[in-house]
Structures are given as structure tokens and as C-alpha cells.
């Protein structure tokens, strides 16, 4: 091929959802078909482009788009192994979520607005993934906030407005801290791109104090989206959003963006060894562990299904941060791979929760008696996701847990095992009762708000198949973790590059 894709592809990937998104705003509310076509066109096109990119990155090609937004301020989109991991995750899950959302919102209003922002949201996520420097990262990070806000507020109820407000308050404040940190860092280093192994290790010792302060600022900014305790308050509140949005928040975009940012800062800005030298990893590890346990304890006390899942996210996403906070390639692999694994497992759970709500009107754990009999496929998918979260092999979650534990022990941090053990038990404590109710309790005589679709399956196809597919992905990611194209292998590729192995 004579056309050099290198400088074009990253930009094209961002635009492949952004442009359809903008067009969708202009689509009349009634033009269901046109909107669906645009949606799917964008999603599939992005998938194809990402496929091309994965192939290229695997072969060691460089994809980089640069744009001067002002002299000295460069927007850099760069595809390295880590960004490819996140890009592929969000692209695949976006396609699935889009299909789901089309079904979910079949009878709803304001669909053009919804799908417009939906596409923008994913564009921003992909932008975050491909960001080649901190400035670019900050820009897309803020765009993500803006694009998600309308989605959270979408339902328009007072609770939705309130949830969206809280979401915004948290994320914008966080974004601002991130911005200040990024600016401050830039005054010390000048413009620097993300680089495997970090760029700061050469800084003189006199600057170390400043670097620690900057790290705290960056971490606070990223921690809001990554829902690190005590910055997690928005996440349970934004549960009022429609199910596909929750899926997007928890699995594909927002929370992941925060966690991904932490990975970027630790590995590609500070460099993990340098961060350890400054004592930053200890801060991160303490925060992550606290979050893991706190989120799980709170999840135990929730009756609302989505709220329980939300607190579970709080807990689970910090596995990623935990992985970043442990020195050594094994833990790094654990953290990185959990980025993908948590994504597919959590999206499964949320899509299932959406199915229960849409089909049976079930919103609470206490209403879930016997749903397994009425909705076997959905509940099967849910079970896979839930068991994976607990870390039951051979589902994907176990793989992450194994690498985190092994990495912790290898790094001499045996307490990681305690955290993982406690988290496993707590996860079991709040997921297994759900499974028990779903499979073992008798069905109620009738569900309050049962919605019957014209189908022979338990619910509408567009709602049913996405979670089933993601559940299968959870199984495949675990079962074929050692196979050449698995997320685990890719995470190992990243770790090798980060540690220069």
C-alpha cells in the first residue's frame, strides 16, 4: 500500500465516531433508520480502523498524528501498546453498547441527543487512549466529562439532574486539579510526550518535592474519575443514568479513563522506578487498597442492583491502580489486563441489570427472586460476570487477580494477598446472594412491571445478545489468556516495553 497511514490513522479513529456523532445531532428524531445506520457505521468503521492499527502496532509501526493547537502546545495522538489496549476495549464494547442502546431506547425520547453524545463520549475516550502527551490527555479528559454529562442527565427526572450535577461537580473539579498538575509539570519539563519508562527520572533531586506535589495533584484529578476513595462520591449517584450509559461509565469510558490516566502517569510520565524512588507508589498503593476494601464493604449494604454494581466498580477499578503501584512487570501486567477484564465483566453486569429493569421492572436485589428461571440467558451472563468479579477461575477476573497477587509477592509486598483475599470474600459476599436469589429462590407470582416483547426469547434481541456476547468474552479472555491474541498477552507486551525487557 503506497498510502502512509501512520500520521492519519489515530486522528481518523477519533473522528470515526465524532463525525457521525455530530451528524446524529442533526438527524430528525423520527429517522430511526438513519440514526441507527450512522451509529453502526461509526462503530464498525472504528472497529476496522482499530483492527488495522493493532496489526500495525504489533508489527512495530508508528502511528502518530500531530496538530499544533498553539505554538508549543501540541495535540499528539500516538498509538503505543498501552493505548491500543484501551482503544480496542472501548471500540469493541462501544459497538456492543450501541447495539444495546438502540434496543434499550427503542421507546424513549430524545434519541438523537442521546446517541450524539454517546458517540462523542466514545470519541473522547479513544482520544484519551491515544493521547500522546499530558496536554492532549487533559483535553480529551475534559471533553469526556462534558460529553457524559448529558447522558447521565438524560432521563430528566429530578434524581437524574441531581446525579448529573454531582457527577459534574466531582469530575470538573478533578479535571481542574489534573490541569493544574499538568501545567505545573510542564513548567518543569517543557513539552514532553508520554514515553515508556517515564521521562522524569533525570530530574535533579532539588525538584523531587515539587514532583511529589504534582503527582498528588495528578492523582487527585485522575482519582476522581477512577473513583478512588474518597473521591468516589459521584459514581453511585450517577446510577440514575440509563443502563447503556452506566455500562459506558463503568466499563468503557469514564472510570476507565481515570484508571488509564493513572497508568499513564505512573508508567509513561514518572516511570515506575522513579515513582517508587519518590515514594509515590506507596501513596497509590494505600489509596488503591483502601478503595478496594471500602467499595466492597459499601457494596454489601446496597439493595439497589445498580448501586451495588456501582460500588463494586469503585472497588474493582482500583485493582488497576493497585497493579500500577507495585513495582515489577508481573503486577503491571495484572493492572493492565484488569483494565480490559474489569471492562468486559462490568459491562456484562450492567447490561444484565438493564435487562432486568427493562423486561421485568426489577431494580433491586431483593426483587430478584427467581429471575434465573424467567431470564435464563441473561442470568447466565450475569453469573459469569459476577463470578469473574469474585475471581473464580477460569473467568477473566481470576487472571488479573493472579497476576496482581504474584506481582505483589514478587515485589515483596505480601500484604497484597491480604487485600486480594479480603476483596474476594467481600465480592463473594455481595455477588453470591444475588446469584442465590436469581437461581434458587422461587419466582414471584408476577413481576410488577413486566414488559413483554414480540420475541420467543426472554427479552428483545438487541438487549439479550450484547450481554451474552460480553459474557462469552469474559470466558474467552480467561480461558485463552495464554493464547497469543489475548488481552493478557498484550498486557505482557506492554509490561515488557515499560520495563525495557
Amino acid at each position, binding site marked *: 500500500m503506497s498510502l502512509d497511514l501512520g500520521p492519519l490513522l489515530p486522528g481518523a479513529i477519533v473522528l470515526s465516531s465524532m463525525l457521525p456523532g455530530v451528524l446524529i445531532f442533526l438527524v430528525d428524531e423520527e429517522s430511526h433508520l438513519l440514526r441507527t445506520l450512522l451509529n453502526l457505521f461509526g462503530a464498525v468503521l472504528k472497529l476496522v480502523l482499530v483492527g488495522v492499527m493493532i496489526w500495525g502496532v504489533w508489527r512495530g509501526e508508528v502511528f502518530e498524528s500531530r496538530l499544533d493547537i498553539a505554538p508549543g502546545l501540541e495535540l499528539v495522538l500516538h498509538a503505543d501498546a498501552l493505548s491500543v489496549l484501551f482503544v480496542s476495549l472501548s471500540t469493541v464494547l462501544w459497538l456492543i453498547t450501541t447495539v444495546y442502546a438502540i434496543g434499550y431506547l427503542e421507546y424513549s425520547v430524545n434519541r438523537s441527543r442521546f446517541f450524539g453524545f454517546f458517540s462523542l463520549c466514545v470519541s473522547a475516550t479513544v482520544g484519551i487512549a491515544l493521547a500522546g502527551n499530558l496536554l492532549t490527555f487533559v483535553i480529551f479528559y475534559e471533553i469526556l466529562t462534558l460529553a457524559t454529562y448529558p447522558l447521565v442527565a438524560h432521563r430528566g427526572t429530578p434524581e437524574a439532574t441531581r446525579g448529573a450535577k454531582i457527577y459534574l461537580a466531582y469530575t470538573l473539579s478533578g479535571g481542574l486539579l489534573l490541569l493544574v498538575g499538568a501545567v505545573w509539570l510542564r513548567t518543569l519539563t517543557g513539552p514532553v510526550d508520554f514515553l515508556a519508562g517515564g521521562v522524569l527520572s533525570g530530574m535533579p533531586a532539588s525538584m523531587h518535592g515539587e514532583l511529589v506535589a504534582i503527582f498528588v495533584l495528578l492523582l487527585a484529578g485522575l482519582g476522581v474519575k477512577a473513583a478512588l476513595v474518597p473521591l468516589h462520591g459521584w459514581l453511585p449517584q450517577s446510577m440514575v443514568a440509563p443502563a447503556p450509559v452506566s455500562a459506558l461509565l463503568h466499563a468503557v469510558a469514564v472510570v476507565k479513563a481515570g484508571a488509564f490516566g493513572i497508568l499513564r502517569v505512573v508508567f509513561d510520565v514518572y516511570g515506575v522506578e522513579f515513582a517508587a524512588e519518590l515514594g509515590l507508589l506507596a501513596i497509590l498503593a494505600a489509596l488503591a487498597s483502601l478503595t478496594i476494601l471500602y467499595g466492597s464493604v459499601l457494596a454489601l449494604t446496597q439493595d439497589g442492583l445498580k448501586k451495588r454494581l456501582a460500588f463494586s466498580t469503585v472497588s474493582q477499578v482500583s485493582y488497576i491502580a493497585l497493579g500500577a503501584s507495585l513495582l515489577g512487570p508481573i503486577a503491571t501486567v495484572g493492572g493492565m489486563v484488569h483494565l480490559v477484564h474489569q471492562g468486559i465483566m462490568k459491562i456484562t453486569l450492567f447490561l444484565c441489570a438493564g435487562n432486568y429493569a427493562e423486561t421485568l421492572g426489577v431494580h433491586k436485589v431483593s426483587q430478584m427472586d427467581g429471575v434465573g428461571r*424467567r431470564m435464563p440467558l441473561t442470568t447466565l451472563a450475569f453469573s459469569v460476570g459476577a463470578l469473574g468479579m469474585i475471581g*473464580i477461575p477460569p473467568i477473566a477476573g481470576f*487472571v488479573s487477580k493472579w497476576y496482581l497477587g504474584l506481582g505483589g509477592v514478587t515485589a515483596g509486598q*505480601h500484604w497484597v494477598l491480604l487485600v486480594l483475599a479480603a476483596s*474476594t470474600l467481600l465480592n463473594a459476599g455481595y455477588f453470591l446472594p444475588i446469584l442465590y436469589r436469581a437461581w*434458587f429462590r422461587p419466582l414471584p407470582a408476577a413481576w410488577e412491571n413486566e414488559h413483554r416483547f414480540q420475541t*420467543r426469547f426472554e427479552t428483545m434481541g438487541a438487549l439479550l445478545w450484547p450481554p451474552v456476547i460480553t459474557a462469552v468474552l469474559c470466558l474467552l479472555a480467561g*480461558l*485463552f489468556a495464554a493464547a497469543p491474541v489475548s488481552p*493478557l498477552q498484550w498486557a505482557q507486551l506492554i509490561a515488557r516495553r515499560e520495563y525495557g525487557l
Partner: protein
Amino acid sequence: MSAWLLLVLWVWPLVLSLPASRVRFRQDWAVGATASVAKPVLGPRRSALPWVALGPLPALVAVLAVPLGTELAMPWLFLGTQLGLDATARVYLGFTALLWLAAGLYTAYGERGASGHAGRFDALFLLAMTGNLWLIVAQDLFGFYAGFAMMSIASYGLVIHDGSTSALRAGKVYLVMALVGEVAVFAGLVLLASETGTTLPEPASVRDLSGLTIALLLLGLGVKAGMIPLHLWLPLAHPAAPVPASAVLSGTMIKVALLGWLRFLPVGELALPDWGHNLALAGLATMALALPVGIVQRDAKVILAYSSVAKMGFLMLILGLTLVQPALAPVGVAGIALYAAQHGLAKGGLFLGVGLRKHAGAPGSLAQALILGVLVFFALALAGAPFTSGAVAKYNLKPVLDAAEWTWLGGAVAASAAGTTLLMARFLWVMVRTEPHEESGWTWPLAAWGLLLVLVALFPFAFGKPASWATNAGPIGLGVGIAAAVALLAATRPKLLAPFIGLVSPGDLLALLAPLLDAFRQSGTTLLDDLGQAWSRLQALGAAGFERVFGTPVGDVERGLRQWSLAGALWVGISALLLILLLASRPLVAPDTGADAAAPVPTSTLLRKFRDRIPSLSLS
């Protein structure tokens, strides 16, 4: 080619679990399907293929067809799968598959109860089977752990199958303990992998284990093995579970712990006297507690459960002694496997017999008499009477016992054998007094039971030296004697012994633990409530403050500013300040004029400058 059987043998039941679940994904949900599935229908199952009985068939084939030492490496599967069949695994695979087959046949044709949930039971049964078989043939620790977890969690569904309150309580205890055990095993395996650098553990490659690792592995698997005091779940779960589930729980699943220890500990490689002695003592303690507590139980299945606990104690004793003296390993390991096999088969027979005694044949019929007779045989085999599998298996372990440093050990073991005999006598007593309720259709379960009977009966002749056949008569005779005396006493003066029965409730130590847990929960709730109240008060204060500052406006604050006098004064003031600041911060380029810079502008200077600028102007 036969290596692939190692994969097929556990994938097969996994695949079967789908049809066995009888879930129909496509049906007309729109017309009130809810109502039709909601009511469980009692009675025999509608005939379908006996999926559960088909499950273990490839495993049976594999036992016979796969040569020892076969390995199948699939590095792409899971985290690197390696399947293989060594001698221990083969023994395990053999008795496990047989017992699952018998239990499966019993399930497929004999299991009654909430048949609306039969699909669920069967699917979970097959999943537990998958796990059990997988962990036996897995040589990588991931496969072992995955199978272990799969088996444990699926069994939870078997335990609580009938949904009664006691089953749910038992299930809860089971699940909590199983999960704690699993977490400990996980941690132990992580440490093992880290310390040895291998994920294919075998005694030779795990010589560098730290104490923590060994402790975690012992405790984690100890839960499954019923090591005192981690045995609490066993006496609760067995009576709660349906008969075939109890059979496999007691017959195969708890034995898995021993297999794990044989794989993950440096058995025969390294002398670990401390750990060995501790384990042996734990085994002895297990026996010492389980036997007396078992004897005072009312429920036949609880008695059997305690018997299993005691037997596991015995095997722990042996393993412990083997750890002390690595030289004993060849004898010890083979003996343990064989003992586990014979106990599994006999215990399975006993459990299935409980079910048959209850339902197959009218009271007083020939069938019932035969059933009781076979039960007596199984009980003797379990106790280790001469010419039974028990005696032979025990004989094989004699070198290990004899080599122990503890001289009193022989007496203790003999006492335990007598105790087991008593326990079995107590079991038979309960069985005899059980009133059967006849139901039809027990042919296949009886056939399955017969299979077990044949296997147990042939066991001594297949695996034992003739010298071993007639051993162990002493302690058994003693036990039988005491049992006869007690029985006589019980028959003539029932009131004398009545207070002992039910003296200790099933799950013994749990009764002590429960009040502690309650107290903990109570205090925790109180504390959390208080904290919660304080927190919500703080939140309310914060919200009120926020509302005050950012809420709806009160009046127009700026009206005052719009008064010309105020605004003007501010303006003039700011201008003056600006002037002062400008003058004060004059750059010191020309120091000679710096002095008067701060002074008010002198007009004369101004005009002078002005004139200088325009030379044509004359002053005069």
C-alpha cells in the same frame, strides 16, 4: 491420541451440563410462562437422557485407556494448561469417576423432591463433576485451582437444593468456609508460584516453600478436608444435601485436599518434621473429636459425615508422618491414594444406602432386609473389618504408622478403629429404626449401588496382598463387643442412654461460635448506626452551608455599589492608589531624579520641560 481423553474427560460433563439443565431459551415468554414454571411438580422425573450418568464415562475410559505418565500440554489454554496422569491421579480418577457414575445413576433415576428444579440440580452436579475431574488430571496449579473452585461453588447449589431452612443454613456455612479456604489456597498458590517459579508443582519442584506458604496450603485445603476446627461445614452440609450429592461430597470431594497436599508439598523430597508432626497431631485431634461427637448424633447422614471427618483425620495423620520421614513417601503416597479410594467407594455406598433404605421397598420386605444387609457390609468395610477393603487399605499404611516416633500411636490408632466400629454400629442402629416409605422405580439406583458393592467387595482381592486380608480383627472385635453391650443396654434401658443422644448438635463448635458472631454483629451495627448518624448530621450541616452560599439569591447586593458616591469614592481611591504605586515603584534608572519622584507633580517643572521642547518660544 489417548492424551486428548484427558481433556475430553472434563470438558464432556461441562458440555453435558447445558442439555442437563433443561433450560429452554426459546419459549413463548409472552403468554405467562412465569406461572407454568413457578409451581414445582413433585414426583418422578420425566424421562430424559440420564445426562448426569453419562458425565463420568470418558473419565472411566481414560482410567483404562490412558497410559501412565501421559501428558498433554496446552500452553494457550487458560494460563498454560498441562494435563497428565500419574499413578496417584489415576487412582483418584478411577474411584472418583466410579462414584460419580453411581451417584449419577442414582440422581438420574432415583432422586425425587422438587423436580421442577431437577435441571438446575443436574447442571450443577455436572459442573461439580467437571471441576473434580479437571483438578485431578490438571498438573498445572491453575487447572487444579480452577477445578477446585468450580467444584466447591457448584456444590453449594447441591447442598441447598431442597431449599429448606436447615439446608440454607448449612449452605451458608459451607459457602463461607469454602470461600475462606479457597482464598487461602489462592494465596498459598501465589506464594508457591513466586517462591518456586513454577506453575507445574510436584514434590520435587516445591522444595523452597516458606512456612507461610505451607501454612496457607494446609489451612486452605484443610477446610475441604474437614481438619478440626475447620470441619464445621461437613456435618451440616451432608444431611442437608440430597443423597447422591452427599455421596460425592463425602466420597470424592473432600479427598481432593489430600491430592492437593501431595502435589504442592515436598512429600518425599524434604523432611519437614515440624509441619509433619503438626499435621499428624491435627489428624489425631480430628479423629478424637469426630468419633465421640458422631456417636451421639441422631441423623444417619450426620453420623456418616462425622465418620468422614474422622477418616480424613486418619489420612492427615499418615500424610503428616510421611512429611516427617521422606523415606516413607512411596509407601505413604500410594497407601493414601488407595485408602482414599476405598473409603470413597464405601462411604458412597453408605450414603446411597441411606436413601435406598428410606424409599426402596416396603417396610419388612425382602428388599429392605437385603438393603440392611448390604449396609452392614459397607459399614464393616468402612470400619476396616478383616477381609474388607478397609482392612487391606489400612494394612498398606502400617509401615508408616510403625515408623512413627510416637510409641503410643499404635494404641491410638487401634482406639480409633474401635471408635469407628462403634460409630458404624450407631449408624446401623439408626438405620434399622428408620421407617421406609416405599416408592417405585428404584431399579437403576439399586444397580448403581450394586456396582459399588461389587467394587468394595472385590477391592481386597484386587489390591491387597493375601497377608493383609485377615488383619485388623482386634480393634474391630473390641468395637463390635462394646457396640453389642451398648445395644443391649439401649434395648433394655432406653432411658439411660437417651440423654447422650443429641448431646452435641451437628456442627459442634459452631454452637459456640454463633453467640460470638451475634455479639460481634450487634456491636458492629450499633457502632455503625452511631457513626452513620453523626455522618448524616455532618452532611446536613454541609448541605445547609452550601445552600446558604450558592443557593437562590437574596436581594441585590450590588445596589449599594451603584450609589454614585460609593462608586465614585472607590474610583478615585483606586486611581490614587494606582498613582502612588506607580510613583513608588519607579525604576531606578536615574537615581538623581528619584528623590522628587514621589512628590506631587510640580507644575513648574512641567512647564519648563514644555518650553525646552519648543525652542521657538521665548519666556520673556
